[in-house]
C-alpha cells in the first residue's frame, strides 16, 4: 500500500515547507517595520539580539505553521461523516521517537546559534579610532569579572543609580573620589562612537535599566551591581534614545524615564566641561557661604 500514500504525504510536506518559507519571507518584510522584532539600531549588542531573535522567531513560525496546518487539516478532513470509521491507532513508537528527536535537534541548533552570537552581545568593541581618549573615558582593569570593558580597556564609565523614581548617572573620572564626579539625572549624555560601560545599582527598591534601542535590560538590585555596555554609532550623534524603568518600583514606576542623548565627541567634551565648572562654581559658592557664616554674617 506504501508508495502512492507516501508520495502524497511527501508532496503535502513539501507544500507545507514551501508555504512556511514563503510565509516567513512575507513576515520578514513586516518584521523590518519592527512590528515583529525588538527595537535595535542604537548599539551593536541590540542589533545582535535582534538577529538572534529573528532566527528563533523564524523557526517558531515554521513550527507554528506546521502545528496549525496539521490541526486545521485534521479538523476539516477527518470530520465525522456518514460511514466514516475512525482508525483505531494506539501509537507509533518510531514516529514518536522521531518527533522527540526533531524537537531536540531544533533546540540544539538554537543553543549553538545563541553561543555563537553571545560574544557580540556581551563583549563591547573598542571605541571608534581616534575616539579612545575622549575626555571622560578612563582605562583600567575591570572591578568585577562581569564588568563590560572593550579589549583595550578604555571606555566612558558611568555609574547608573536607580531610586524612586529617577535615574542618576555619575561619570566616574577614575580618581577614586566620587564627590567631584560629574553627574546628571534622567538624561544621560554620551559621545557617539565611544564605548560606554555601565555599572548599575539601586539605592532603595529594585529597578531595571532599559533603553530598548541600546540593548537589553539589566536589573538594578539593592546590594548588587549589574553591568552592561552600549556604543552608539558615530553617525547617530544627535539622537535621543528613550527608555524607562522595567521593574515595578512603586506607584510612579510608569514615570521613571531614562533618556540617552548621543552627541558628537566635541559636544560631549564641552558638556562635560560645563558640568564640571558648574560643580566647581557651586562648591566655591558653598565655601564662600561657609566663610560668611563663620564670620557671623548672614548666609
Amino acid at each position, binding site marked *: 500500500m506504501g508508495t502512492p500514500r507516501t508520495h502524497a504525504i511527501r508532496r503535502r510536506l513539501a507544500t507545507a515547507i514551501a508555504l512556511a518559507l514563503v510565509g516567513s519571507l512575507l513576515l520578514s518584510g513586516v518584521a523590518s517595520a*519592527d512590528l*515583529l522584532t525588538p*527595537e535595535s539600531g542604537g548599539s551593536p549588542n541590540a542589533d545582535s*539580539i535582534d538577529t*538572534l*531573535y529573528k532566527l*528563533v*522567531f523564524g523557526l*517558531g513560525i515554521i513550527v*507554528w505553521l506546521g*502545528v*496549525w496546518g*496539521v*490541526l486545521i487539516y*485534521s479538523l476539516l478532513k*477527518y*470530520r*465525522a*461523516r456518514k460511514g466514516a470509521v*475512525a*482508525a483505531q*491507532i*494506539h*501509537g*507509533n513508537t518510531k514516529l*514518536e521517537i522521531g*518527533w*522527540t528527536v526533531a*524537537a*531536540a535537534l531544533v*533546540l540544539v541548533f*538554537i*543553543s549553538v546559534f*545563541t553561543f555563537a552570537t*553571545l560574544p557580540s*552581545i*556581551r563583549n563591547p568593541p573598542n571605541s571608534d579610532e581616534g575616539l579612545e581618549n575622549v575626555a571622560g573615558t578612563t582605562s583600567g582593569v575591570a572591578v568585577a569579572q*562581569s564588568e563590560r570593558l572593550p579589549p583595550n580597556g578604555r571606555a566612558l564609565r558611568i555609574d547608573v543609580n536607580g531610586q524612586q523614581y529617577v535615574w542618576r548617572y555619575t561619570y566616574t573620572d577614575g580618581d577614586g573620589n566620587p564627590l567631584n564626579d560629574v553627574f546628571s539625572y534622567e538624561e544621560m549624555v554620551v559621545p557617539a562612537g565611544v564605548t560606554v560601560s555601565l555599572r548599575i545599582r539601586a539605592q*532603595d*527598591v*529594585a529597578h*531595571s535599566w532599559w533603553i530598548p534601542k541600546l*540593548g*537589553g*535590560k*539589566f*536589573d538594578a538590585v*539593592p*546590594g*548588587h551591581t549589574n553591568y552592561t555596555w552600549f556604543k552608539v554609532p558615530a553617525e547617530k550623534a544627535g539622537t535621543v534614545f528613550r*527608555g*524607562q524603568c*522595567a*521593574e*515595578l*518600583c*512603586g*506607584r510612579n*514606576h*510608569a514615570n521613571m524615564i531614562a533618556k540617552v542623548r548621543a552627541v558628537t565627541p566635541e559636544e560631549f567634551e564641552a558638556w562635560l566641561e560645563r558640568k564640571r565648572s558648574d560643580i566647581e562654581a557651586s562648591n566655591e559658592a558653598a565655601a564662600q557661604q561657609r566663610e560668611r557664616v563663620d564670620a557671623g554674617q548672614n548666609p
Partner: protein
Amino acid sequence: MAAADITTRGRTAAPAPQITAHRVEREPTGWLSWVTTTDHKRIGIMYLVTTFVFFIVGGVEALMMRLQLGQADNTLLSPQTYNALFTMHGTTMIFLFVVPVWAAFGNYFVPLMIGARDMAFPKLNALSYWLFLAGGLVFYASLFFSAPEMGWTAYTPLSETAFSPGGVDAWIFLVHLTGLSSLIGAVNFYATIANMRAPGMGWGRLPLFVWTVLVYAILLILALPVIAAAVTLLLTDRHFGTHFYDTQGDPMLWQHLFWFFGHPEVYIMIMPGFGVISEVLPVFARKPIFGYKAVAASSVVIAFLALLVWAHHMFTTPSPTVVLIFFMISSFLIGIPTGVKIFNWLATLWRGTIEFRTPLLFAASFISLFVIGGITGIIVAVFPVDWQLHDTYFVVAHFHYVLMGGAVFTIFAGLYYWFPKMTGRMLNEGLGKLSCALMWIGFTVTFLIQHSIGMDGMPRRVYEYPDIGNLELYNLISTIGSFILATGIGVTLVNVYISLRKGPKAGPDPWKGNTLEWFTPSPPPVNNFDVVPRVRSVEPMKDIRREIERNTGRAVQRAQPAPESAVQPGG
C-alpha cells in the same frame, strides 16, 4: 467493594443477572447540608462555583486595567488603584482560580474516574475547601484597609514595610491559607490515586486526567512548602525585625525562593488542563489517545524539569553567565515533552471521525493558542533575547497564551465536557460554540498585539504610557479584544444559568465517553457506584459498551438472524 469484586470476578462467561441494592437514603438538602458535607462531588461543586466567582472578579479587574490603557496618558485610574488592580488580578487568577479550579474538577472526577466511592480523606477534603475560601476572603478583606500594590511576585525590598506599609500582609496570609489548602488537597489526591483505584486499574490503565492530577499533586507538595517558608520570612522581615530580604540580607534570596515555587506553579496550573485535553480528544475523535505512554510519561518529565527552570525569570538580574546558560538549556528541555504532548494530540485527531461538539472546539482552540505560548516560551528562554523582552508586554502576552489560551480554555473544555455529569443536563451547543468563537477571537485580538507592544518598549505594570509610535493604537486594539473575550465568557455563564433549568436531560453517558465516570447516573448518587467493574484497558467504558453490544447483539441475532456482514464493533 466486596460485593463488587464478586460480581466482576464472576463475569467470566455470561454474567448471572442479579440485582444489587444499596441502602436508599434521601440526599440531604438545604444550605447546612452543603456547609457540613464531606462528599467529594459537593466539595467539587463548591470549589467550582467559588473559583468561578473569583474568576469573574479577576476578570473585572483585568477589564478595568484595559480601560485605563485604552488611551495614552489616561487619567481614569490613579497609579495606586492600578497597581492594586494588577496585584489582585494576578493573585486572584493564580491562587483563587486556576489552581483551585483543578481541585474542583479533581475532587469531582478523580474518584469517579478511578471507580472509588470518595476521596481518601473526606473530612480533610472539606477542610481544604474551607481553608481556600478563608484565604480568598482574607485577601479581599484588604480592600477595606489597604489593598496590596506590590504585584503578585511581591519582590523585595518593595514589599518590605519601608516601601509597602499595608496590603502585603493580607497577601502573605492568602498564600499561607490557600497553600495549606492545596497541600492538604494534594496529599488527599495522592493517597486516593495511589490506593483507591478500581480492580484491574494498574498505572498503565490510569486515565490521563488522573495522571495529570497526580503530577499536579506531587508538584504542589514539592513547591508549596518553599513559598510558605518564604512568605513567613517576609512576614518576620515586616513585623519582627529580621532582615532576610532587605539590603542587610539579600533581595535576590526572595527572587530565588519565589520562583522556585513560581515556576512549578505554572505547570501546576496547566498540567490537569493537559489531562482534560487528553480525555476530550479521544472521545470526540472516536479514536484512542495516540501514544498513551508518551503522553503520561511526558507529564512526569515536565514535572521534573519544572523544578529546574526557575531562574529563567531572573535572566536580567546580576547573575553569573553560567547560571543563565543552565537555565536557558533546562527551559529548552521542557519544550521537548511539551512538544511531544502537542504532537500526540494532533496524531490523536489524525484519521479520527471528529465530532464538532463544544468540548472538542475548546480543546482544538487550546492547541491552537497554547502552541503560540510554547513558541514564545522558547523565544524568551534564549537569555540574551529575554534581556529585551523580560518584564514587557511580550512576556504578558506569552504567559496569557499559556495560562488563558492554555489553562482557561482547557477549563472551559472540561466544563462543557463534564457539566452533564455534574448536573444531569446538557449545556446548550449553540451558545457553547458562540462562546468558544468569541473567546478565541477576543483572546487573539487582546493578546497577539501585546507581543508588539512589548517589543516597542512598553514595560508591564505601568499605569500610563506616552503615545510613542503606534502604542496607543495597539493598546486600543487590545482593550477592544478584552471586551470581546469577556463577552465570550459571559455567554458561557448565561449558558450555565439557562441549561441548569432547561437543558435537555443528559443521561449517564451523553458523549460515549471512555472512562468510568460515565458508568454512573448523572449526577452520580452519593455512593457513586453500586458495582465497580473490573478494568481491562485505558478505556473501560468503551469495553463495557462493546460488551453490552456483543451481548445484546447476540440476543438480537437469536431473535432475528441477520446477515453476517453487519458491522461488528471492536474486532
